[in-house]
């Protein structure tokens, strides 16, 4: 009896295993791994539950009695006596064995027949499930699957959902990011982009379409694009990429690895096992900007009377990713063309390495320029700027430089530290010097008045009015400066900043008041006003961002009429080549956008207010997908030469994909192109759900 029960239990368990496997495979193909596991467990459990009778010896005895009538219930009776506990147990076993022997029961044959009856259907079902699953999924290797031969494959595509992992280049020291089912993939140029999807890789093909002239997709990845697959098509280069097995959560899957290029590109993945199954990913590289550097000290150009002392240097550098190093560059130039040429040497000061500090995005550079150690002669010019490099190991390093400050050592011929040889001082400089002279003269006059003998009244009046005249002259010159008066060809008034102009206005008012006081023979009241005017002028000069090396070249007027009569050379011009093609970018973009926009309009005109309606209006889902993909391709082409148009098309695509009203995005796109708005009744109605 024990052997019979064990045999029947074994048959039930094996049968349950077959049915469980069959159910699991079918369910997994349709709905995924987790659902498959559950379905398999449920199917196996049902079979086991139906065979629960094998736990009872009485039920097994009845099962045997039903198949061996010769036992005449002897077996059931013996089981009853055993289970009844009447004290005759010892003899019951013997009775049972005798009954089985007398009836010549073939227990092995019974179990074999039971196995055949239950196990064969189970194994057949399992085999059928395996064959069905193999039929509806791509072959394991090397076999091409005919298009349109599958039904379940239509339920679950290998191109969705996909996961994109972006690993920034090592120098950026940024963490990897994962995107689920994106349309656009943005990342630093040189990042590794890993695209993963469900299913097996066979039958999938991936191509990279990038701009000609830029590094290809394998620049930074360990993948193996097929260089021989590259073909030129207009300004784009197409490269075939390898689609490889890549384990996902279920242990299967495919993956494509591509490097983020330096320009916008398309990653196109096709599924050969499904008609018109294609997935487009826009690779939108983010450029690593070079460092921004600001030179804080010295804050302005200057002329030094002697090459002695120290000049403190200070600069601020910042970068979007991380700084690598920074320094001050000093170019020392001396000599002149007449004395054998201008010679220069380049010095580097205050160099600091910043890459050791991870992600240091800002830094202050300091240094000291020791003039005495440079052995500078008169007329030497120092050009100082700060330089910083970032850690960009892909396209860089990016170099950022500050504006240049010029420090010049005065020559012996120069009267003071302000005047520059070869040119008269500017009006503002002349005003300052004259105002200082008036202050000195007024001070001297007041000292004279304080001394004995007293200054004669006529002499006081004459000297004071002369000072008033000088003050008025300076005021007139400054008035001319502020009103945009003659400063040669240099528009001084336009070049003034608001603070400079405010200071000069204050100086002008002080000069006017001082002239009035001097006219009234009141030099003591005029002196503070004159000093105030001088201070204001000095402050305005301090605000001036730059003092040019020289003021202006001599103005030479050519007598054109006379010269025209003296020409002796006869030109022999060559044939003119056709000039550059005029910029018709707006027309070009509009021509490319015409087809997809017309399709969208057609869908709107037919009252498409849902995805299904839009698809049917356009001729099927593939047609709608083609419209979206066309816009995506145009966007990739526009991103580099016309970033605003690329962004506008991105908004348009997002609106369509998200099912939002695309009117505003469409209008913005046309505005960016410069084509103006065009009323389209259909488009105004067209909204994807």
């Amino acid at each position, binding site marked *: 009896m024990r052997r019979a029960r064990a045999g029947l239990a074994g048959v039930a368990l094996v049968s349950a295993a077959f049915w469980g496997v069959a159910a699991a495979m079918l369910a997994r193909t349709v709905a995924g791994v987790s659902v498959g596991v559950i379905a398999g467990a449920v199917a196996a459990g049902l079979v086991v539950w139906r065979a629960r009778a094998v736990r009872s010896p009485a039920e097994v005895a009845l099962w045997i009695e039903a198949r061996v009538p010769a036992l005449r219930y002897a077996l059931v009776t013996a089981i009853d006596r055993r289970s009844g506990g009447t004290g005759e147990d010892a003899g019951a076993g013997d009775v049972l064995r005798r009954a089985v022997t007398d009836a010549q029961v073939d227990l092995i044959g019974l179990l074999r027949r039971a196995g055949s009856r239950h196990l064969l259907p189970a194994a057949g079902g399992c085999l059928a499930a395996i064959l069905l699953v193999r039929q509806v999924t791509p072959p394991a290797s090397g076999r091409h699957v005919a298009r349109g031969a599958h039904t379940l494959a239509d339920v679950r595509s290998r191109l969705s959902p996909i996961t994109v992992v972006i690993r920034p280049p090592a120098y950026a020291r940024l963490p990897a990011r994962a995107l689920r089912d994106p349309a656009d993939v943005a990342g630093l140029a040189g990042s590794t982009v890993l695209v993963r999807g469900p299913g097996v890789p066979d039958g999938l093909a991936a191509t990279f379409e990038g701009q000609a002239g830029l590094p290809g997709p394998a620049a930074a990845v360990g993948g193996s694009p097929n260089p021989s697959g590259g073909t030129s098509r207009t300004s784009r280069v197409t490269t075939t990429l390898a689609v490889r097995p890549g384990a996902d959560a279920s242990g299967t899957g495919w993956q494509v690895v591509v490097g983020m290029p330096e320009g916008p590109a398309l990653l196109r993945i096709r599924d050969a096992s499904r008609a018109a199954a294609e997935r487009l990913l826009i690779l939108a590289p983010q450029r690593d900007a070079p460092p921004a550097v600001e030179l804080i000290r010295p804050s302005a150009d200057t002329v030094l009377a002697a090459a002695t002392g120290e000049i403190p240097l200070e600069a601020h550098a910042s970068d979007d990713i991380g700084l690598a190093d920074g320094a001050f560059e000093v*170019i020392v*130039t001396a000599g*002149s*063309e007449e004395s054998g*040429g*201008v*010679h*220069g040497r380049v010095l580097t000061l205050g160099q600091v390495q910043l890459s050791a500090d991870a992600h240091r995005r800002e830094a202050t550079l300091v240094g000291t320029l020791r003039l005495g150690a440079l052995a500078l002669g008169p007329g030497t*010019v120092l*050009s100082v*700027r700060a330089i910083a490099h970032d850690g960009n190991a892909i396209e860089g390093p990016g170099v950022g430089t500050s*504006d*240049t400050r*010029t420090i010049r050592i005065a020559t012996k011929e120069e009267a003071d530290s302000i005047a520059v040889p070869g040119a008269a001082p500017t009006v503002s400089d002349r005003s300052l010097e004259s105002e200082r002279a008036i202050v000195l003269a007024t001070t001297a006059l007041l000292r004279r008045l304080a001394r004995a003998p007293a200054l004669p009244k006529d002499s006081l009046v004459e000297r004071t009015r002369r000072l008033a005249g000088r003050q008025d002259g300076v005021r007139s010159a400054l008035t001319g400066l502020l009103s945009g008066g003659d400063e040669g*060809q*240099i*528009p001084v008034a*336009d*070049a003034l900043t608001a603070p400079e102009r405010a200071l000069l206005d204050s100086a002008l008012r002080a000069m006017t008041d001082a002239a009035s006081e001097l006219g009234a023979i009141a030099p003591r009241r005029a002196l503070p006003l004159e000093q105030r005017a001088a201070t204001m002028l000095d402050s305005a000069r301090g605000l001036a961002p*730059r003092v*040019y*090396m*020289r003021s*202006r*070249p*001599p*103005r*030479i*007027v*050519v*007598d*054109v009429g006379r*010269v*025209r009569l*003296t*020409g*002796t*050379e006869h*030109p*022999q*011009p*060559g*044939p*003119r*080549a056709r*000039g*550059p*093609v005029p910029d018709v970018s707006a027309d070009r973009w509009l021509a490319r956008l015409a087809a997809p926009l017309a399709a969208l309009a057609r869908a709107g005109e037919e009252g498409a207010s849902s995805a299904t309606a839009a698809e049917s209006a356009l001729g099927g889902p593939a047609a709608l997908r083609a419209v979206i993909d066309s816009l995506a391709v145009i966007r990739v082409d526009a991103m580099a030469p016309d970033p605003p148009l690329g962004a506008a098309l991105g908004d348009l695509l997002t609106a369509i994909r998200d099912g939002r009203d695309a009117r505003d995005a469409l209008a913005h796109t046309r505005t960016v192109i410069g084509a103006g708005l065009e009323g389209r009744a259909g488009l105004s109605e067209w909204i994807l759900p």
Partner: protein
Amino acid sequence: MSRFVFATGRYASGDWDSAPLVPANLIDSVARYTSIDVAPAGAVVALDTPALFDYPLVYLTGHLPFRLTERERANVRRYLDRGGMLFIDDHNHDVGGIFHRTATEEIGRTAGPLVDLPNDHELYSCFFRFPDGPPATSHELNGWGDNLVHDHLQAVVRERRILVLYSSKDYSSEWGYHAESKRLQSVDNTRFGVNVVVYALTR
């Protein structure tokens, strides 16, 4: 059509006005050989002002480091994008000097990479013909200075148009004399300057 004004660019660093006689000399040549309505006097224009856009061609030269401020750089980029042309000449007759190094770096940052301009470029035939390319200067030929003839000019070219024409040949010295002295020359050495002007105005 407005009158052509020869403009000299003023930049923040260096000695932008190192060749004060060149503008008048080239104005003389343009008037002498062409029918271009040229203004009798040149103009000086700061590179960081909107006035830059009034001039189709701007001449820049100097001996000292050539560097632009951020404001100058941005303004020059817009100027070049909108059809302007710069003619930059190294006033030093040396090789790899300080002006050359700083100017080529600055041009690269502002306009793009410099390339050798082929000697059959239409710049050399748009008015006078120069079948051998850019005419050599006396500094190159007489051994004074670098004793080297620069075979090519360099340029930043966009869609077949020259944006920046860069010369290491020191035309600023070669053309830096009073126009009245031309009568003493057998061949006017400023003829190439006429080609530069004609190219800038017609391409």
